[in-house]
């Protein structure tokens, strides 16, 4: 399962963080700063995967921003000693799919967009991943749901004009 999804820039500043397994704040802060350091210490010629404290981690860099997905064995499977069966390359491409989706939504996504519309980025993620599972990968379906949300909210404001 996906345990967390992070968007961290190369200065180590977290731009978006989503956890599917609860971690107390001090642990999150430590995890985020250590993991970005590990990603930064790797060269472009090395593979996009690393292991960090039991998390099988996949990362991908877009300009100054790192997208990082940390995975652990599925909760149900872990109870019977199951291993982490996540497909690293599949998740690498899922990151790309996510970026393409956000790109379509923002008309060319950049770090600033994520900062200015943080809650919307979360809403997009909520359409695609639930309980650490990938539930939607079609850009059209994801953006349709977001569009519905945005239209409904504009309607709400118009009522008060």
């Amino acid at each position, binding site marked *: 399962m996906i345990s967390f999804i992070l968007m961290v820039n190369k200065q180590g500043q977290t731009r978006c963080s989503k956890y599917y397994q609860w971690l107390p704040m001090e642990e999150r802060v430590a995890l985020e700063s250590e993991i970005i350091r590990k990603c930064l210490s790797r060269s472009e010629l090395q593979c996009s995967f690393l292991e960090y404290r039991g998390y099988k981690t996949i990362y991908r860099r877009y300009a100054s921003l790192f997208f990082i997905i940390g995975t652990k064995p599925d909760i149900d499977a872990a109870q019977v000693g199951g291993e982490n069966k996540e497909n690293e390359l599949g998740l690498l491409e899922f990151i790309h799919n996510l970026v393409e989706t956000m790109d379509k939504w923002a008309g060319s996504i950049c770090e600033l967009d994520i900062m200015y519309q943080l809650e919307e980025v979360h809403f997009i993620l909520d359409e695609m991943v*639930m309980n650490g599972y990938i539930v939607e990968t079609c850009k059209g379906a994801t953006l349709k749901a977001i569009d519905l949300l945005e239209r409904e909210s504009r309607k709400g404001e118009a009522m008060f004009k």
Partner: protein
Amino acid sequence: MSGMHLSKEFFELLKAIGESKSKQEEDRIIQREIATLKKKMDGSSSKGGLGGKLPTIGHGGGGGGGGSGSHNALNQNRKKAKEFLVRLLYVEMLGHDGSFGYIKAVELAASSSIIHKRTGYLLCSCCLAPEHEFRFMLVNQMQRDLASSSILEICSSLIAVTNLITSDMVPAMASHVEKLMNHGSEIVRKKAVIAYHRMYQLDEHTVDRKDLIDVLRKVLCDRDPSVMGSSLNVIESLATVDPAPFKDLVASLISILKQVIEHRLPSDFEYHRVPAPWIQMKIVRILAVVGKNDANASNGMYEILGECMRKADVGINAGYAVIYECVRTITSIYPNPTLLDAAADAISRFITSQSQNLKYFGVTGLAAIVESHPQYATAHQMSVIECLEDRDETLQRRTLDLLYKMTNPVNVQFITEKLLGFLRNTTDEFLKEDLTNKVCTLAERYAPNNLWYVETITDLFEMSGDFVQQEVAQNLMTLIAEGSGDDEEDENGEE
């Protein structure tokens, strides 16, 4: 996209965060922000504040605290309330405590404006610890939203339920979620499946495993492929624990996979010419679990796996990911020589590839095949050694895994030496523990003689004594006490 929709204050905050040059500077900025936000909360009955509980549409005008009765002021208040929460989210995201504002999130979740409701739920999901009492306060609201006539409200609640429920909340919510799996909208059904599974994970008594499986069988045949795709996650999860109830679904799964790889899904499912790669991967993984040790079940899968592998070979990562999944499955299910050869071929291509990511898959693929079919390992000995000496730490670790799985009485000494070498040089606790366990297992299984065993375990104690299991220590003691008669053993100095 500019930040024009943000208040000047918020815009300045983001600008400051973006331009900050150090963690300390960022901390100072956030401390100031916390002070500002706290003041806003205290000034709730003044015009500049957030207003008290937010009035809802349909309750006539005004009402509630804050602002005048005019609609514009109400709108302003709600905008401010939402912005307050997003700023609070920033505070917490950057590592500071924002608990003073949580109550506002709970209040906003009760809003009739969907975007405010969603924002309220979002903040609760991100910030409320499992033991936090506010989670319980949201039960009624989530129930109301699940029963709403608005799809958006239902979806907000389903997402919130999945993030926020705890085991004692399941009985109150289970039937609401179960009903939604027959909802007319696919956006709802897709989420309801996951929410229902979440409840099962927390409370197996209220959400019965058998009921869940019955539901899954229906959802697998849902007319919307995304809903079907969503259910695959849950099926994989349950089948990993016990594949028996899913054996009769193999035919359906194969039929779905066939449709997918023949491009019969809507075009939106195509990802760079590969049709629904993540759905393909999930189905192939489920087949692995259901076909393991089952010749009958495996038999039905051979054809589709071969076809799937062939069709996925389009030269891009998404395709390779599917191929790799097929390789893994082929090595887990009841063996088929043709497929095994095809899998070995794919592994060869991966391990000799220029791409580090594919090399990684080559190594992990080889580890999968070598356990049950060791003959495939010999062709790649050189590549394996190269990977072991690669400067890429991730690749090295995967290769250690592979070596471990390749061990036999002939190469045990060589491989153990390699593992000990890495153990000696690492500071990573997880890797230490893993390697320690591996060396112990190999030493027990394949030790050529007692002397070697004693020396190896002694080395192990020196390097990572904390991680060595009790029985190993005891075995060693026994061995030394019995004495081999060849040499004087030094007493190992461990506690």
